[in-house]
């Protein structure tokens, strides 16, 4: 919000006639989303008589998004704009991995293992993590969550792996 975007210094990989790559690519991707939505709603029923079918509104708004995406792309083509911002892979990758691993382990392995493992994976998201510290905080967090959610809030959480309970 208040930070200045970290624009990639140096040469742009885009040809000169694309003046604002950020908007150009942004518009293109939105158009792709719109086309995908059009494809996904292709076999829904359209208008019958005066009334909308299930597919009318999705197609209508997908069409609108397609047009708007085209507009944004055109703006990127015509007007001088910022270059693409730099992407980092480490943060997004490990945070996503932590989320996915949580989703896959919460049912079979229970909250304790799942939360702790995901915590450690997420902690890989930056090279500044100090391991001892992270392990201690991870354990505290796991204990805290194991008390908070199932006991204090009474939500149905399984704490330990299924095979250990049975």
């Amino acid at each position: 919000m208040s930070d200045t975007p970290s624009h990639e210094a140096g040469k742009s990989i885009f040809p000169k006639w694309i003046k604002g790559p950020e908007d150009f690519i942004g518009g293109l991707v939105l158009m792709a989303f719109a086309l995908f939505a059009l494809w996904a709603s292709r076999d829904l029923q359209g208008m019958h008589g005066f009334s909308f079918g299930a597919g009318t509104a999705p197609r209508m708004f997908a069409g609108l998004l397609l047009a708007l995406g085209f507009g944004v792309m055109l703006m990127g083509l015509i007007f001088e704009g910022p270059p693409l911002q730099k992407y980092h892979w480490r943060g997004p990758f490990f945070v996503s991995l932590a989320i996915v691993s949580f989703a896959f382990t919460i049912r079979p392995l229970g909250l304790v293992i799942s939360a702790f493992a995901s915590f450690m994976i997420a902690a890989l998201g930056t090279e500044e993590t100090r391991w001892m510290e992270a392990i201690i905080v991870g354990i505290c967090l796991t204990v805290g969550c194991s008390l908070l959610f199932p006991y204090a809030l009474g939500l149905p959480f399984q704490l330990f792996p299924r095979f250990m309970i049975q």
Partner: protein
Amino acid sequence: MADLVHNLALGFGVAFTPINLMLCLIGALVGTLVGVLPGIGTIATVAMLLPITFGLPPVGALIMLAGIYYGAQYGGSTTSILVNIPGEATSVVTTLDGHQMAKQGRAGPALAIAAIGSFFAGCVATVLIAVLGAPLTKLALAFGPAEYFSLMVLGLIFAVVLAKGSVLKAIAMIAFGILLSMVGSDIETGASRMAFNIPELADGLGFATVAMGVFGFAEIIRNLDAGAAMSRDLVQQKITGLMPTKKDMLEAAPAIGRGTVLGSILGILPGGGAVIASFASYTLEKKIAKDPSRFGRGAIEGVAGPESANNAAAQTSFIPLLTLGIPPNAVMALMVGAMTIHGIVPGPQVMQKQPELVWGMIASMWIGNLMLIIINLPLVGIWVRLLRVPYRLMFPSIVIFCAIGIYSVNNAPVDVILAGAFGLVGYWLIKHDFEPAPMLLGMVLGPLMEENLRRALLISRGDWSVFLTRPLSAVLMATAAALLILAVLPSLRKKRDEVFVEEG
């Protein structure tokens, strides 16, 4: 008038039971606790804490949620003032003068005036809701589907005009949001739309899931870009002297009054709300100040005005929700989600059928604000210590907490994965300078818009001119069109950009 007193009395009767007071206090505390964490705004806080209200009775749950909402907002201002990291859009302007005040060793008065301003604004807004609630409910009866649709279009256009950056991109985000809202079963025919036979998608994309993704996970990922050792400008001086001096109060009082009026008006408009109110109030204060150069250097009006305005707006934004059933912003949409879980459908009927619920919640907002004043000033020291926790430890904790929160909404692992996917989408949007807030608003209003559009066209036998021939609808549409034209006119654009440049 008798009605008004009766209603408020009923509300306070409900809210003043020990258990509800307790829930309000816990909500305000927890809300502040999470809201203080940098990079977690009100929306993510409310989404994250939704599950903790599930086990409560409806009134208690809503009271606690209202507490969380206020707490989160106040926590956001605390972070803005102490660390110069706005927790969310509404407190962006607070950083301008608030942090400067803190640097001059006046963090105490800045925090106090924010709380006092919010409280005053809250009092006024509470009365306003009570006054306007009943007549607006009657107005709602004059609203047909065409009017509803036009009103929502107006609300969305408002959000576009007053959002920062490109108008075209903001409209594109709204269309994207509306499209996302159409995933799942069609309301009328029950046909599965764009759900790819994934059973968890049959009910549509969960609003909390998407909100957590674009506002929670995306924000974390983006913060990691800058390195976990984010330069945090935490005020190191010891905070002494919490209470503002008499001079402070005298300077701040008119600003609080103006902020309250401005916020109350802007809050009622759908799509308007707290963000715009705080920006508008800051601009106003700067315009009418005798010495505008003080702003940005620790002017107390620059904290008092916007903080009152955003709180007034936050509160009056309940009016469209309670009377018309239209959630005017993302937080309200989360509230709707919570109400639906408890079997309450917001709209004009709730006011009549479950008055104790509505008035209890309204009264508890007032109490929540009062509690914030009482509990937060002594607790400032704790918040400061919390802000010293390094981000490298904070972010994995937030990730896990969010994941558990999302999972517990439906006990569905797929929701967690979807939120993660929306985190990546949100990250991409930030990188391409698309604002996620209009997208979320589009997603919130999407189902209502579609339903009313379909109904309006069915009634008019497919005649699109119905939106322009019904007088009320025509006025709303004309206002929307005028706003849009004004927004793209170069002169106003320049002015608008000036307002937003100040946050840089």
